[in-house]
């Protein structure tokens, strides 16, 4: 295996920020579940790698109705949010398997590129639907931006945490995946905010997770299901064809909206 010429091992959030600097040439390794296989396979040959395991970014804090999730938090710990944001916990428990959920981090899952053969980044869905704010550092210092904006410009930035307001209700629906692989084929998250806004987001797309803004504006659940197909480009991969996902997406949207109605 090709080794990085320099390996950084920050022992605190401040050290992580200082060592990351402007992010030039730094490959960040959270839990390693996505990056380490790329190193093993020789697809990634970083000049500099930063291992975040001991950087103290594995925080989960509640302040009134505001909840902050550290980028280094292992995915399985999002189950602790079952009473605050049920969809986040449901989505987290749908990621891969017991061991990978313990090892993978929220930051790694949020920031990963779409996989070459299957969708990745399951957590993008719930955090987009929650309208989370991403705090990150990089070339222009520390910024806090909406998650969709962060995702579009995440290259060269180190995600520190995600903050969101506790929703009134949330719901998550996904196509089940077989035992023989660990990837979510298609998933939809719905959130009803304290102000009464309904937000929807999907993963399992041809690219990053995305808000379903047309579906959000639709008059009813059936119209929302149809509108969702105009909101996104669906993945067409080894797990499922775009044709199949096209038929499944409206079902998941309707299911999520129905659950939100029941919960409200």
């Amino acid at each position: 295996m090709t080794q990085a010429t320099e390996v950084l091992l920050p022992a605190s959030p401040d050290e992580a920020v200082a060592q990351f600097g402007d992010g030039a040439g730094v490959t960040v390794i959270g839990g390693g579940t996505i990056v380490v296989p790329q190193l093993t396979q020789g697809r990634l040959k970083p000049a500099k790698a930063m291992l975040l395991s001991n950087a103290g970014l594995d925080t989960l804090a509640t302040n009134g109705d505001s909840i902050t999730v550290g980028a280094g938090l292992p995915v399985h710990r999002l189950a602790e949010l079952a009473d605050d944001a049920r969809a986040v916990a449901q989505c987290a428990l749908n990621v891969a398997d017991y061991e990978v959920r313990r090892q993978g981090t929220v930051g790694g899952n949020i920031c990963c590129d779409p996989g070459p053969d299957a969708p990745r980044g399951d957590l993008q869905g719930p955090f987009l639907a929650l309208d989370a704010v991403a705090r990150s550092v990089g070339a222009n210092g520390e910024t806090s931006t909406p998650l969709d904006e962060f995702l579009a410009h995440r290259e060269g930035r180190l995600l520190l945490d995600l903050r969101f307001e506790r929703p009134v209700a949330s719901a998550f629906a996904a196509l089940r995946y077989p035992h023989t692989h660990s990837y979510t084929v298609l998933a939809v998250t719905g959130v009803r905010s304290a102000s009464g806004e309904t937000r929807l987001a999907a993963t399992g797309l041809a690219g990053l997770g995305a808000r379903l803004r047309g579906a959000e504006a639709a008059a009813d659940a059936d119209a929302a299901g149809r509108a969702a197909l105009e909101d996104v480009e669906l993945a067409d991969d080894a797990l499922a064809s775009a044709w199949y996902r096209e038929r499944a997406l409206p079902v998941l949207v309707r299911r999520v909206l129905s659950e939100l109605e029941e919960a409200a």
Partner: protein
Amino acid sequence: MNLTVNGVSREVGSAPLTTLLDVLREELGVTSAKAGCEQGGCGSCTVLVDGEPQRACLTAVGAFDGAEVTTVEGIGTADALSPIQQAFTHHYAAQCGFCTGGMLMAAVAYIERGGTDDREAIQEALAGHVCRCTGYVKIIDAVAAAARGDSFDLSTTASSAGMTNLGGVS
């Protein structure tokens, strides 16, 4: 850096981004953890790190200086099988044996955290482990039996002598 592997302190000289799997197999000669898919999908490399099951193939060793690692070699011997190894033997839960090491370590962790003989719970605990022989029914039987604390007379188990290296060195 140092790792405590099966209770023995071992100095590790591999580079920090080397996987724990490569360190165990190539540097330390501990070979029960298998290199299957090497991307976290098959479970055959699973070991315990500080008591929790973890994919050795996904673990950059540099972040785990001082950790305690337990593999199949650390839970029993050919002459004194651990309860989970006895259960696998009694229930014929190993076929080719390639997945067995990972299955055993996941099962040890499952039982250690209070897992019962509930088959759905066992399936969830082993969800990340693929048996290419598709021997899942007997694997779940074995984990359920071990979770119940069943005891076995392996002298009555056919071919048990040939299975005493269950999940071990190859």
